[in-house]
């Protein structure tokens, strides 16, 4: 690897790192959530480029497909569905925190700079992982239990989100309110109606 190549890689890293940082600030400074979502999409895409530079093409691909594709579409859908107005971001609650925040910020920056400056590159590995084959081999041999656990987790997420986002039917609400009123009035609630109300 000659010097010009090294310079090119460094410039590429700095360009996409700067893009990611600017877009990340964009997320927290925008008033309108849809602009924040666009900022997050830019961060995810520039991180995908950095993953490619780290010889992780599979991770870069699923970063684009799953994160920038599926998850962010979900976010944008919810923002548009709820028709969110731009709100004031900073409230009076942060009145006192404003004065102690810079101190902690400088402390944190110092800490990060201290530890990052001590990091040294390990000796170059014999073989660079990242191909789909090597990932599949690891996932279906030594890490098959976390993989199956993730599938159970996603199943629970599907059921949970359907249950939470479901709009309750009008008659169900009336029945639940009736059962609650009967219970409060001290009347013995019939078991059958109680079960129906909970169903």
């Amino acid at each position, binding site marked *: 690897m000659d010097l010009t190549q090294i310079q090119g890689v460094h410039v590429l890293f700095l360009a996409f790192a700067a893009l990611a*940082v600017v877009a990340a600030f964009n997320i927290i400074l925008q008033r309108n959530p849809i602009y924040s979502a666009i900022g997050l999409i830019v961060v995810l895409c520039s991180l995908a480029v950095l993953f490619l530079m780290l010889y992780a093409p599979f991770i870069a691909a699923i970063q684009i497909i799953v994160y920038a594709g599926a998850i962010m579409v979900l976010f944008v859908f919810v923002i548009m569905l709820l028709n969110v107005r731009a709100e004031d971001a900073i409230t009076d609650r942060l009145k006192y925190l404003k004065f102690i925040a810079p101190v902690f910020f400088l402390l944190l920056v110092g800490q990060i700079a201290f530890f990052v400056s001590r990091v040294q590159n390990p000796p170059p590995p014999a073989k660079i992982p990242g191909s789909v084959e090597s990932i599949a081999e690891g996932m279906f041999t030594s890490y098959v239990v976390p993989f199956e656990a993730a599938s159970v987790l996603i199943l629970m997420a599907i059921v949970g989100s359907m249950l939470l986002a479901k709009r309750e039917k009008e008659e169900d609400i009336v029945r639940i309110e009736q059962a609650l009123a009967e219970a409060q009035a001290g009347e013995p609630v019939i078991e059958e109606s109680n079960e129906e109300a909970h169903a």
Partner: protein
Amino acid sequence: MVPLSWYLALSAVLFTIGVIGVLVQRNVIVLFMCIELMLNAVNLSFVAFSRFFGDVTGQLFVFIVMAVAAAEAAVGLAIIISLFRNRETLNVDEADLLKL
């Protein structure tokens, strides 16, 4: 080759921006995006370590993190929808009680 410390520094910066967002923002959807940003910052560290140590485990961990993030986003956004339906607001300061 780009040194490992650069990747770690970028990861730390992105994570910090995510934390600042969680502390400063009051919109629950943007708060959620900041959590996703923090997860991604950690993912960058994992992939960088995976490449520099020549071990594929870091990338497997990133895969699991992405699955968890997807599940979290689905359930979290469902909670946000039902919160908005019940309270007509997305401000987290106004939704600090479990009961209506």
